[in-house]
C-alpha cells in the first residue's frame, strides 16, 4: 500500500483533482450531463494522443517539438487520401498513416542518434519540415473522412444489460483512447524495451553499462512518439471530417500535460496515466472557465497559474514525504 501510494500518489492526486473539477462543473452548470462529457472526451482525444507522443520521448530523456506538426501532416494525408474514396479504402489509409507516423518518428530518432545534434534542435527543424510538407499535401483545410471512421468516435458505447443512463456516460471516443493507449503502452511497460526507455532517460551512462542498446532504444522511443502523433492526426480527421494543414495548439499543451502529469522533464520518471488524466484536468478547467464566462485571455493566465501551483504543491508533498 505504501509502495502503491508512493508510486501512484501523483496520479491519485490528479484523479482527485479531476473529480473536484467535475463537481465544480456540475455546480456551475447544473445541466452538465452525459452529452457534455461526450464532447469533452472527443475534444480531449487529439490532445491525449499528442501527450502520449510527448510522454514516451520525455521518459526516454528527450523532447519532441514536432508532435503537433506530425499530427497536422498525418491528418491532411489521411484526409486527402480518403477524399472521395470508397469506405473500404479507409481500411488501407489508417494503417498507412500510422506507419507513416512511425517511420517519420524513427527518422527523428535516427537524426538525433546519428548526427548527435541535440534533440531539441532536430525536432524543431522537423517541426518546420513537417509543417511545410503538410501544406504541400493540402494547401487549405479540406479532404474527407470515411463515415465509419467518423462514427467510431461519436456517440456512446451500448453495453447490453446496462441502463441507457449509464451507457450515456461511456462515449466511444473515450473507449477508442483507452484501447489505443493500452494496446501499445501495457505490453511496452512489461517488456525489456520499456525498461530500457526508462533506463536511458534516467541515466544514459548507467543504461549503456547495463548493456542497454542506447541508440536503438532512443530511435524506438521517437518512433513510438511518431506513432502516437499519427493516431492524434487521425483523431483530428475523424472528429472534424477534414484535414487542416496548420498545426493546432497541441505542442505546448502536450508539454504542459506531461509536466502536470508527474513526468520529470529530465526523463526516467512517470507514466502515461498521469499525463492523460492531466489533459482531462486542463480541458475541464478550460470548460469551467468558459462556462463562467471569463475572458479567454484570462483563462490562459489561470491555466498557467494552475500548472505552476500543482507542480509546486507536488514537489512540496514529495519533500515532506522524504523527511
Amino acid at each position: 500500500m505504501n509502495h502503491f501510494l508512493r508510486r501512484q500518489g501523483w496520479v491519485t492526486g490528479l484523479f482527485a483533482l479531476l473529480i473536484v473539477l467535475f463537481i465544480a462543473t456540475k455546480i456551475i452548470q447544473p445541466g452538465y450531463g452525459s452529452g457534455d462529457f461526450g464532447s469533452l472526451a472527443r475534444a480531449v482525444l487529439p490532445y491525449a494522443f499528442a501527450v502520449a507522443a510527448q510522454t514516451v520521448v520525455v521518459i526516454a530523456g528527450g523532447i519532441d517539438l514536432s508532435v503537433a506538426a506530425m499530427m497536422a501532416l498525418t491528418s491532411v494525408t489521411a484526409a486527402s487520401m480518403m477524399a472521395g474514396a470508397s469506405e473500404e479504402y479507409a481500411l488501407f489509409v489508417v494503417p498507412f498513416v500510422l506507419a507513416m507516423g512511425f517511420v517519420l518518428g524513427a527518422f527523428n530518432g535516427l537524426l538525433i542518434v546519428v548526427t548527435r545534434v541535440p534533440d531539441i534542435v532536430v525536432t524543431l527543424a522537423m517541426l518546420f519540415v513537417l509543417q511545410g510538407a503538410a501544406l504541400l499535401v493540402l494547401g487549405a483545410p479540406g479532404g474527407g473522412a470515411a463515415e465509419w471512421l467518423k462514427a467510431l468516435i461519436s456517440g456512446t458505447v451500448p453495453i447490453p444489460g446496462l441502463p441507457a443512463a449509464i451507457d450515456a456516460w461511456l462515449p466511444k471516443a473515450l473507449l477508442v483512447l483507452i484501447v489505443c493507449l493500452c494496446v501499445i503502452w501495457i505490453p511496452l511497460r512489461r517488456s525489456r524495451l520499456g525498461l530500457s526507455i526508462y533506463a536511458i532517460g534516467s541515466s544514459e551512462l548507467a543504461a549503456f553499462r547495463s548493456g542497454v542498446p542506447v541508440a536503438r532504444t532512443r530511435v524506438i522511443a521517437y518512433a513510438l512518439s511518431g506513432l502516437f502523433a499519427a493516431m492524434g492526426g487521425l483523431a483530428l480527421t475523424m472528429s472534424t471530417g477534414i484535414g487542416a494543414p496548420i498545426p493546432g495548439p497541441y505542442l505546448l499543451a502536450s508539454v504542459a500535460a506531461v509536466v502536470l502529469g508527474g513526468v520529470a522533464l529530465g526523463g526516467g520518471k512517470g507514466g502515461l496515466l498521469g499525463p492523460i488524466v492531466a489533459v482531462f484536468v486542463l480541458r475541464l478547467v478550460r470548460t469551467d472557465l468558459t462556462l463562467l464566462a471569463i475572458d479567454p485571455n484570462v483563462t490562459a493566465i489561470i491555466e498557467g497559474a494552475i500548472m505552476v501551483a500543482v507542480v509546486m504543491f507536488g514537489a512540496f508533498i514529495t519533500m515532506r514525504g522524504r523527511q
Partner: protein
Amino acid sequence: MTTSPLLDASGVAKNYGAVAALRDASLSVLPGEVHALMGANGAGKSTLVKILTGAISANAGRILIRGEARDIRSPAAARRAGLLPVYQEPSLIPDLDVLSNLRLTGTPVEPFRAWVRELGIPDLDLRDTARDIPLAVLRVLDLARALAVEPDVLLLDEMTAALPANLAEKVLEVVRRQGDAGRSVIFISHRFVEIAALCDRATVLRDGATVGVVDIEPGVEEKIVELMLGTRIVKTHVAARSVADKARPPARPRITVKNLRVGTKLSDVSFDLADGEVAGVVALEGQGQDELFAALAGSIKPSGGTIEVDGSPVKFTHPIDAIRSGIAYVPGDRSEALAMQRSVRENIALPFSAALRNWGPIHMRKERATVASAIERLQIDTRAQGEVQRLSGGNQQKVTIARWIAADARTILCFDPTRGIDVGTKQEIYHLMRELAGNGKSVLFYTSELEEVQRVCDRVIVIFGGRLVDIFPVEEADEPALMRAAYGLPRGAKADVGILADPHSSTQASNASDAAEATP
C-alpha cells in the same frame, strides 16, 4: 605452468586524436586468479578497462577470451563473452527499483538476493528505488548483480573506495573466494593493503603501456611503485609537527565546536581546531561525518549546539557565511565543487567573484596573477586548462584546493580529498596540507583511508554512531588503533580487527563488526 589464460589482451592501443591514451597495453589473466591492474592516474587503466568491457573500441590490439579472438563492441557483447565489470560509479538506473534493474540486465533474482545477504546487507527491499539507496550499498548491489550471473572474468574498478570498513571486508572476502571457485577477477585499486591481501599477480601500466607483471609477495610494494612512477620514490611519512613546534604552547582555538547536534545523525559533538594543525576525522561510512562537515561549511543548519570562530559564536545559514569566516569546504566528489565545463582559471577565481559586491567588472590582471600563483604552487598540470572536465581526477582535486588557497581561506575542510587519486598526487596533497598548517592555517581532514592519518594529521577525532568517541594524538594512531576506534571500541582493547585480523581466531573482531552492522 601450462594453464592457458582466460583473458589475454595484447598490443592494445587507443588514440584520441593525436593523444595516445594507450600505446601497447597487455593483460593476461589466468583462471582462478585475482589479478591487480595498477598504474598512476593517466597511465591508461581506465581506458584499458573501457576497451575490455566494450565501452569504447580499441584502435589496435588483440583480445582473446579462452583462446578465441573476440571483438567486444558493446557492454552487452562483453557480458555475453562472460566479462562483467563493476564500475566506480554504480551502474544501477537511478529511477528504477532494484527489481527492474535486475530485469533490465536479465539477472536472476534469487542468486542476487543470496549474494546481497552474503555481502553483509541483510534487509534489502527489492522495491526500493536505486536513487534512495546510499552510495556504499549501491556499489555492493552492483557487485552482487555481477556475481549473480557467474561471469568468467569479474572486473572491479576501485571496488572498496567509499565503502565503510565493515562492507569492504565482506567484499574482499567474497572476491577472494571467487578466485578459489575458478573464476578470474581483475582488481583495480590504489590500496596496497588490499592488493597484498587479495591478489596473486599484478600488471602495472605506465604511460599507456604495460611495464611489468609481478607476483604479489611480501615487499613487492616498492617494486610496483617504482614501476608505476618510472622512478624510485621513497614512501615518506610526511613529518607531522616538529618537536620545536610541539614545545610551543597551544594556540587559541580557531574553531570551537560545542555539543553540536544535527537531526538524528550527529549528537553532542565537541572539539577544538587550532591554527596550524591538521586534525583528522576517522569514521566508518555514515557515522555523521557528512553532517559535521556540512554544518561547519554552512550548507545545513545544526539543530543544536554552538560553533565558535575565533572565540565568537557564529550561525551559518548559507555557505557564503562560512566562506566569509574563512572556512572553505573541499568535497570528496570533485563534480560537487567544480564548474566542469569552465576553465581552470574561472574555477579558481570563482569564490572571490561570487560575493554580490564583486559582481562588477573583474580586475583581470589581479585575478590572473592570483590564479597563476595558485596554479604554480600546486603544480597543476594545465595542459588541458580550457575545461576542467578534461583534467585528471588528481588535478581536478588540486583545482578545488587551489581556489581556496587563492581566496586565502584560513580553515579548510577536506572531505576525503584523495579518493580515487594516484599515489603521486596523493603525496602532493599530503604535502600541501602540511604546508598549509605550517603557514598557520587549520585543516580538518576526513579520510576513508586510515593509513593517511599518520602521514598528515596532528590529532585524530573519531566519530562513531553520530558521537565523538575519542580524540587522540597521532603517535597512537596506527592503523589497528584507528580501526578499533572507528568500530567504537575503547582504546585499551587489544585484538586486531578488520583485514588485519587473524581470520581463524579473534571472536572479538567478529563481535565488533556485528556491532558495527547493528548500528547503521
